[in-house]
């Protein structure tokens, strides 16, 4: 009896590369089929080469000076578009390749209570290595409360603090906090 020999097509190989997840059938096949292994290697080499070429090209156009100028431009424009209320969340933000979704980076929480004269900026630590690490180190987050002006309610802050400890803070909780604190929407004036 003759079995038709199966080999993955290029689309399957590309999917394997692009998804960055295990494909057991494919992995098993690649473990013994040298031609397919070579095909995947060649495709990966091409893709990585293009990535490098395009990234180098872009990074030369956007060198440090230009990126710094870009940040200054953003800062200036933010000055013209002041949100009364900005509620961000813990964000995965590491630019590391192949793990874009797995990391938790610093988040900013701005609570502007303009009418009450209360304004706080809470910031997660500069480097949060992992969700587990941040869960295990509540004091770091507490310590990261950078600016708390007079009038801040300690219990309220603790709630926010606790909410920030989890990598995926429950929306409901943040909404509750959102309801609890006044909004200042009228001063938003996006520049165009």
């Amino acid at each position, binding site marked *: 009896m003759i079995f038709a020999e199966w080999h993955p097509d290029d689309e399957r190989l590309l999917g394997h590369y692009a998804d960055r997840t295990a494909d057991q059938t494919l992995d098993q096949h690649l473990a013994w089929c040298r031609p397919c292994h070579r095909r995947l290697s060649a495709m990966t080499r091409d893709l990585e080469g293009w990535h490098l070429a395009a990234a180098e090209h872009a990074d030369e156009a956007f060198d440090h000076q230009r990126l710094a100028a870009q940040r200054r431009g953003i800062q200036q424009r933010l000055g013209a578009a002041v949100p009364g209320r900005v509620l961000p969340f813990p964000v995965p933000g590491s630019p590391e390749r192949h793990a874009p979704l797995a990391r938790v980076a610093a988040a900013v929480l701005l609570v502007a209570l303009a009418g009450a004269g209360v304004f706080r900026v809470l910031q997660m630590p500069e480097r949060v290595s992992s969700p587990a690490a941040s869960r295990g180190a509540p004091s770091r987050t507490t310590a990261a409360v950078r600016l708390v002006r007079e009038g801040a309610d300690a219990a309220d802050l603790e709630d926010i603090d606790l909410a920030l400890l989890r990598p995926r803070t429950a929306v409901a909780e943040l909404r509750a906090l*959102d309801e609890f604190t006044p909004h200042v929407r009228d001063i938003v004036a996006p520049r165009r």
Partner: protein
Amino acid sequence: MMARGELSAAREAFDDIVVRHQRRASRIALMYLRDAAEADEAVQDAFVRAFTRLETYRDEHPFEVWFTRILVNACVDRQRARQRRARRLVALEDLAFEPAAGRSASPERRAVGLAWREAVNAAVERLPARQREVFALCHLGDHTPRDVSMMTGMRESTVRVHLFRAVHKLRAALGAWRDLR
């Protein structure tokens, strides 16, 4: 109103996020718009929009996916504005990249490297818009087809088809370079 010091503290805090994401955002925007000045503006648009809309962020997607969607929209807006301008102008702007010189490396290697980069960028530029968009997000932005589907609203299967076609075309266009590099 907020005091000046408070506002600057808020902006300073947001700057950390900008620092973390701006390089990748700039790469994507450049591949999208093929013009550094336009890409720069689009990235700034995106960060300003993100800052003013942070409260609309929901945690079902990672921040980066949410932000990249804003960036894609900013690029599309810039592209449309540019098309409107172009229609008004007699001559189109020259959108070609100025090849920038490499830094250290031998003159031969530098020349090959520059030519290779030019070839890659030219091949990417020749891709149809959708394929270029998907390629930029998946490959240069390091996002999975699933993420790109969330960013663009395209079906995941459509993203995969565009990506596959883009890669297929690029391999065909750049195949001759394999032995030269």
